[in-house]
């Protein structure tokens, strides 16, 4: 085991899989010579050459769309879209084309395409770089939406994504790229999709989160423990497929739940979590399920983003209300 940052874990997955499977190719803006704006692909061009690592024209639509064609040709493309907020320019290729190619062709063709893309706030980026629009892709049947929160998951889930015969949107928490460190095994392992994980045990309330919001929930749980409130933290890890059983069981064990995400409140994936709990765990709930999310506004200018992105204080407040509700 080695201690790695998120970005190192992602790079190690890419390197190992490109070495293991010569069909795997990487494409995206600035991923070759520069090694990616966050260096996720650093060294790949040198190691695997210009026939496997491609600096692409600045055009998200054709990065995604040509990845589908590469997959049909027999290659296994891993595309990078520089920021999730830039996938707006590629949404028409990802949702109605890549996601449903298996369906439209009645199984003749599948899109073994991985699209890696960082997202999330708190690092003072310019407009559109931070947008948390993962829920938009949950409404694209055929696509899997994967949200690793730590280096172990990042490597194991990226290997799983590249080998998945179906397309995967792999969202990377950019705030955690260098901040979040953890133990990562050398060599090959995968983390299966659709299995949530309890990252902290607690009996009073369950905090449900994914990606960078997991660390936020864990910090809030530490603060709450000082007040005598024991919070369980559940990392969903993947939104599609959703681990309904794991979610329900984690919430039933505490009877109370707060969902935390960086996306705007209305129709964020938290709404789906709440609806699922209402259907599957209603009689175990002792209080309404609360949501801590960004407001329904565009992502603000960087200097005031701390008032927008959910904070430890807001999570702690929501938990206090949920725990005291009769």
């Amino acid at each position, binding site marked *: 085991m080695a201690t790695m940052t998120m970005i190192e874990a992602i790079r190690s997955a890419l390197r190992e899989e490109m070495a293991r499977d010569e069909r795997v190719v990487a494409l995206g803006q600035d991923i070759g010579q520069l090694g990616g704006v966050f260096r996720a692909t650093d060294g790949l061009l040198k190691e695997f050459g210009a026939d496997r690592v491609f600096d692409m024209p600045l055009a998200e639509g054709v990065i995604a769309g040509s990845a589908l064609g590469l997959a049909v040709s027999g290659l296994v493309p891993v595309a990078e879209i520089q920021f999730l907020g830039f996938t707006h320019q590629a949404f028409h*290729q990802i949702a109605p084309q890549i996601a449903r190619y298996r369906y439209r062709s009645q199984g003749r063709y599948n899109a073994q395409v991985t699209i890696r893309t960082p997202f999330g706030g708190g690092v003072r980026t310019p407009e559109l770089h931070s947008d948390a629009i993962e829920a938009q892709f949950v409404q694209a049947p055929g696509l899997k939406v994967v949200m690793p929160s730590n280096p172990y998951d990042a490597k194991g889930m990226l290997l799983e994504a590249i080998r998945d015969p179906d397309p995967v949107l792999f969202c990377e928490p950019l705030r955690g790229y260098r901040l979040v460190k953890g133990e990562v095994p050398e060599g090959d392992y995968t983390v299966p999709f659709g299995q949530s994980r309890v990252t902290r045990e607690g009996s009073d309330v369950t905090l449900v989160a994914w990606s960078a919001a997991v660390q936020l929930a864990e910090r809030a749980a530490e603060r709450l423990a000082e007040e005598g409130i024991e919070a369980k933290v559940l990392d969903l890890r993947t939104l599609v497929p959703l681990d309904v059983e794991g979610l329900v069981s984690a919430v039933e064990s505490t009877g109370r739940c707060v969902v935390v995400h960086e996306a705007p409140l209305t129709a964020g994936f938290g709404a789906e979590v709440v609806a699922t709990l209402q259907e599957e765990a209603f009689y175990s709930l002792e209080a309404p399920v609360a949501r801590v999310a960004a407001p329904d506004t565009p992502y603000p200018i960087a200097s005031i983003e701390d008032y927008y992105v959910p904070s430890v204080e807001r999570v702690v407040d929501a938990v206090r209300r949920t725990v005291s509700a009769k």
Partner: protein
Amino acid sequence: MTAQPTADDPKTEAELDLESKQEDVERSFAGPGERLEILSPDGTVRPGTEAPMSTEQVRDALRWMMLSRTVDVRAISLQRQGRMGTFSAVRGQEASVVGSSFALDPARDWIVPQYRELPGVVRHGFPLDGYLLYWMGNPAGGRVPDGVKVLPLQIALAAQLPHAVGLGWGLKLQGSESVVATYFGDGASSEGDSHEAMNLAGVMRAPVVFFLQNNGWAISTPRTKQTAAANFASRAEGYGFPGVIVDGNDLFAVYAAMREAVERARTGGGPTLIESQTYRMGAHNTADDPTRYMEPVELSGWDERDPIRRVTAWLRSQDAWDDDAEREMQAGIDRQVDEAIESAEAFAPPNPEQIYTHVYADPPERLRAQQRAALDSH
């Protein structure tokens, strides 16, 4: 007021109006660049050119063109009887589609279609009954048989172009000599995907032929509202590869231009944009009413440039065609189309379970639960 012909001016106002509208139609296609033309509307080969296909090939191509027109007529009739969903006819574009497909080798080349290329994709191996089944609303018709190098029909216009580029580029990376031909129209050329795809194809020197069928109309929107440029082919210069204009109603010109483009792609010369200037001799599809935006003259003006008529005229001039031959070929086509319709209609109707199949290789438990619940309640 109706003008009467006089000795000084033998033409009526109506006739003059018709001429002027025909000229308008002509002008909307004539670009400043050279347009490749070989077979004239009267069926003669233009001076200084020669037929690029053998008589046998031309007869074969004619059969595909006549098959296409027969399917159009039958499909529209089926649609009116409620036996077919919305259908887009090829009428008027037969030389464009068939001529271009004849330059492709179904054993190794790929077609990435839009949706108005019936004879091309069927010649390439997509079964006619499956094609009809798709438009009858049965999802099984959407399945391209294994081994047939055709991608699914595309409804989101121009979205197929990035796929074609990725496919061609990927095949080239794997050392293949396959060529990818992708079809789109004057309307689809306005989509961002069209620009992004051609640009990338140029950068990667992908073995792709962009076959733009300029049929004059995007539903009701005329070509002149898609672009202020004189033609579409000139865009290729901006992408760093050749662009050519052909008379799209001229089987020989289309075939010759496509053959050259395919050869260029196959030998590492990269992409080509072919603008095939043709004409949609009818409605956009069975739900469309072209009388709201087309003058009758705009259709009748194209009858004399009917792509089928000039091929049969050429064959007659070669003593390779007569009324008996035509009757015999048409009878064979009618039987083939009858059988395809019969086979499509005999296909098992879609099953509600098909809603849930082919979404994922391994459906998430949540989707499986939805499937169980939905099917239990029926």
